[in-house]
């Protein structure tokens, strides 16, 4: 029976999972330590998805950048395009964790949200050092 190996990326356990195929159908999935591993492999076979994290410059912030993430996983092949779209974005301080930086990125229905609090710059400059 043809089979394919996967490394589950959902948690640090990094389980090695094998999917056996009969024709195009998945016959069996083994090696996962939990249900999430099976879900991951099933998705990986039909339409792989990945998370996205990057940074966006902030105006008037006490840090130069705010870290951001996609609120949900995105189709894997869209990741480079989504990163380019986010690269053009600018945020303005104050920014709070969860603030939407880009709504509905590339029409996927997924938002790009802040993962860090950035306050407005006070009199003194407090760049990260």
């Amino acid at each position, binding site marked *: 029976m043809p089979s394919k190996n996967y490394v*589950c990326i959902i948690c640090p356990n990094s389980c090695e999972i094998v999917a056996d195929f009969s024709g195009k159908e998945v016959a069996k999935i083994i090696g996962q330590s939990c249900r999430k591993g099976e879900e991951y492999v099933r998705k990986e076979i039909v339409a792989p998805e990945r998370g996205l994290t990057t940074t966006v410059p902030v105006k008037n912030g006490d*840090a130069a950048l705010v870290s951001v993430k996609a609120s949900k996983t995105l189709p894997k092949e869209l990741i480079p395009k989504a990163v380019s779209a986010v690269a053009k974005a600018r945020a303005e301080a104050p920014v709070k964790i969860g603030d939407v930086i880009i709504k509905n990125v590339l029409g996927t229905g997924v938002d790009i949200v802040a993962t860090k609090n950035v306050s407005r710059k006070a009199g003194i400059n407090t760049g990260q050092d």
Partner: protein
Amino acid sequence: MSEMIVKSVDVAVVGGGPAGLSAALSAKKNGAKNVLIIERGESLGGILNQCIHEGFGIDSFGEALTGPEYMQRFIDQVESERIPYMRNSMVLRVSKDRKIIVSSKEGLYEITAGSIVLCMGCRERTRGQICTPGTRPAGVYTAGAAQNYINLRGYRIGERVVILGSGDIGLIMARRLTLEGAKVLAVAEIMPYSSGLPRNMAQCLYDYEIPLFLSHTVVEIHGKKRVEAVTIAQVDERFKPLKGTEKKFECDTILLSVGLIPENELTRDAGIMIDETTGGAVVDESLQTSVAGIYACGNALHVHDVVDYVSLEAEKAGKSAAKNAAGRQQEKGTIKAKPGEGVRYVLPHKVSGHADVKFSLRVSSPERNVKLIVTDGERVIKTFMKTRVNPAEMIQLPLKKSEISGSREIIIKLQNAK
């Protein structure tokens, strides 16, 4: 040293990373009134400030948070508990009588503490420590420094990159640089296996078709002012480069991801006993070091791959520190725990046998279908089956007090399951 600002606290926490935050919160929760966090950086949170990728808090929160999100949850608690912290304040010295010298903008402080928790984290090995041959041109960074430049300052560090070493930070940076438009040409690892987690190999290298050269080391770095190229070669079992296997990559940037070492100058200077394998303090089950009233946890104790374990370990250290500061008696560790064959280290180094213990350990090399056997030197106490073990993954083995009480020593070894 005249004119020192004198202060006294119940529990002083050195370092405001995830370990320091959890230790302080736990000390407070366990009755310490006067807790103080001392952080040399501009902000709390430690290394997590620059770890913008996801994968933190899977165990504790059931979701894959980014580093800054994970850290903020603890900072918020520190704020709402009104635990005081000093920033831009560097601890210069810790002494056996639990006095701490701190350098800060206001001047030098001398802080006397009932208990001290050491949470200084770790730092990266650098090129000097791995003796890379060749010239010393610009363009060579540790992976963590590159992470800091890119994720906190928004610098572009280079266009064509080769990564030496396959530690997790290097793998994470391979993906980050690729998405930022740089070309990562290769990752070279001297060992026959990666030192990073398999999940990071999968999502950071394989996803972007970045080649990984196992059993390869750098033989030359070319370029006078700036890196122009790097030559790697395959190594034999003794890690000697094999003639004729050289590969040259033209690049302008080299990242070193060759491992982390606990930051323990303060610990050594205080005369605290160090385990040369972990690079951290020798501790008992309360996480007390060889000096009474001084505790250690987090990456300063041993390098952790998962932050959730750092937080849990720090909670324990904070609790012990609060108990000690209140003058409450603690269990003395008399049973020594040691690594046996196939195991690199075991922590804690000493246990009392009067409480359940969770041992942390790392194996020496990746293996499949093995047993981890806990013995008291003669008798087998317990066996744990593992389908896969990997030096990149810290393993935790819980043991009940009934299983260990009465043992003279505890040895944990690895054996083939067949």
